[in-house]
């Protein structure tokens, strides 16, 4: 009976079709040194339904670390290192170049061969041969962008990762998953009741989230490939704020079943909840360190919402934030060295970064209604929700605060973003 009621409120969609809200990228700020790179259109690319090198270039530009060098007027375009006139490209300002060619194989698959060249030293930095179907063009472009990003910055790229977020369209809520650039959005769940706090499992194959489908908040885990859903926490009162432990077998959640909101550990398959915190205030919004040893969370036990940490097995809490009267929504960096969170200052809610070794706090954004910051899996960018033109949009800021971009949908109110892990191969 309960299961029937659960599904009565829910329409599930597993189509491969495009979701209604298409995100577009717009870089709204950037400063500092950017690496000039020429991504030369690949030979035979014009025969494809979409340009590979345009997607690659957009990825690199959005990271804020690259400036694209114009290839217009160059004929013929080089597709092999031997065809590159380095003096000309140096004159255009390029420090590096990407050249390549595409061949259609007998089985209809595409073979994409490309090289990343150092335009100063005239040496190869990276190169690969990939095969893909035309349906995989976008993913392939993101993979190439990852290879280029890593060859030049030394850090892993995040262009093949995915993001999850909630779109509100009128009275309808949709939990969507898209590529990190906002394209290829798919609706994984639609509901007439609020959805919030999506959290990726460490393997990236499941999402935990809070759903009001039973007219009050419960925690649900959904498998992204099968669509199977299971209720993980459905106790009296609030069931919310899921965060996965690194082994993927259990979750930290905020429950109000015994008192006001406190933290508990619960098996990912559901079951008994083990209490972690015992405070006189609200404890919620847990985030687990990558090594699984610590949990940072919001607590107002001291009179105002601040960030604290406890060992993940439970124990005494240590306060981490001291500036300001409202610090919320912590998310631990993948290297464990910093925590991004929302700080309120003079009525403005902005994304901030706490350096754990020094205790220093840097405010990264200059907007006023920021929410839900979420680290990219390489720790170089932070995805968050903010307001623009009276509705919720997604934005990214580099972890040093220098580069901001906006992913704005054509319609709907977007909130609650969560950046997924590196894809498992």
């Amino acid at each position, binding site marked *: 009976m309960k299961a029937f009621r659960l599904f009565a409120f829910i329409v599930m969609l597993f189509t491969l079709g495009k979701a209604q809200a298409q995100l577009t990228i717009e870089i709204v700020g950037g400063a500092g040194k950017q690496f000039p790179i020429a991504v030369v259109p690949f030979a035979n690319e014009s025969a494809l339904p979409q340009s590979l090198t345009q997607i690659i270039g957009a990825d690199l530009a959005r990271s804020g670390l690259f400036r694209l060098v114009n290839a217009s007027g160059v004929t013929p375009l080089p597709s092999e290192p031997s065809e590159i006139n380095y003096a000309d490209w140096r004159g255009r300002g390029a420090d590096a170049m990407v050249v390549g060619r595409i061949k259609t194989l007998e089985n209809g698959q595409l073979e994409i061969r490309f090289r990343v060249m150092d335009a100063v030293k005239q040496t190869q930095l990276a190169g690969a041969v990939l095969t893909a179907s035309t349906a995989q063009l976008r993913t392939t472009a993101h993979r190439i962008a990852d290879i280029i990003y890593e060859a030049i910055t030394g850090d892993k790229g995040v262009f093949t990762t995915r993001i999850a977020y909630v779109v509100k369209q009128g009275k309808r809520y949709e939990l969507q998953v898209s590529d990190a650039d906002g394209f290829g959005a798919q609706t994984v769940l639609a509901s007439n009741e*609020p959805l*919030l*706090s999506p959290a990726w499992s460490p393997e990236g194959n499941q999402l935990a989230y*809070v759903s*009001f489908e039973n*007219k*009050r*908040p419960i925690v649900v885990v959904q498998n992204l490939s099968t669509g199977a859903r299971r209720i993980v926490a459905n106790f009296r*009162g*609030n069931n*919310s*704020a899921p965060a996965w432990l690194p082994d993927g077998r259990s979750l930290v959640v*905020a429950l*109000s079943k015994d008192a*006001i*909101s406190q933290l508990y550990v619960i098996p990912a398959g559901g079951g008994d909840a083990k209490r972690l915190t015992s405070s006189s205030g*609200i404890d*919620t*919004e847990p985030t687990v360190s990558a090594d699984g040893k610590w949990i940072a969370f*919001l607590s*107002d036990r001291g009179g*105002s*919402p601040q960030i604290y940490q406890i060992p993940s097995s439970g124990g005494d809490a240590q306060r981490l934030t001291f500036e300001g009267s*409202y610090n*919320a*929504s912590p998310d631990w960096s993948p290297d464990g060295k910093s925590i991004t969170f*929302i700080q*309120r200052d003079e009525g403005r*809610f902005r994304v901030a970064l706490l350096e754990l070794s020094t205790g220093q706090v840097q405010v990264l954004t200059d907007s006023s*209604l920021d*929410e*839900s910051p979420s680290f990219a899996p390489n720790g170089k960018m932070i995805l968050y929700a903010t307001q623009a033109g009276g509705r919720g949009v997604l934005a990214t800021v580099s972890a040093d605060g220098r580069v901001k971009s906006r992913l704005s949908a054509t319609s709907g109110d977007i*909130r*609650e973003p969560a950046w997924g892990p590196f894809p498992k191969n």
Partner: protein
Amino acid sequence: MMKRIVLSSLLIAGLAACSSTPVKETEAVKVEDKSATSATKSGPDSKSVTQSTVAVNPLKDPGSILSKRNVFFDFDEYVVKDEFKPLVQAHAKYLGQNGSKVTVLGNTDERGSREYNLALGQRRADAVKKAMTILGANDKQIETVSYGEEKAKCAQAEESCWAQNRRADLVYQGEQ
């Protein structure tokens, strides 16, 4: 609609049945109610045919404090303010005197963290529940649910609107 009529006449029947108990201030107002013919046996006009005068459901009577269901809070606060104590007291007394069940729905304005607001809404609902149990209601009669900032009534980003959204609502069983 049909369901509501049946329910309200049941409520009235229930009230009429216990009209000897000292809840005069909540039952004092009498008006015409054409749908309540089955609930008239204790009324003075019970033998008259079509129109009967009975005690109206005080929960729906605009003249009764029990028709007031909203407790408002200050920003980031969950303390029930003095101006709402008579309201909370009246509902506690009402619950103490009959077997009704009520849900307290906690809400917040939209500023800040959704999760913190969800917990804050729960805390507001729990604060109202606690006050009511102290004043005569039974713990088991009161459910609390938080909507956090998710079901804001007023959508403008200004204090007058936020103040309306920082609210706990009392909804009696059968009302929604």
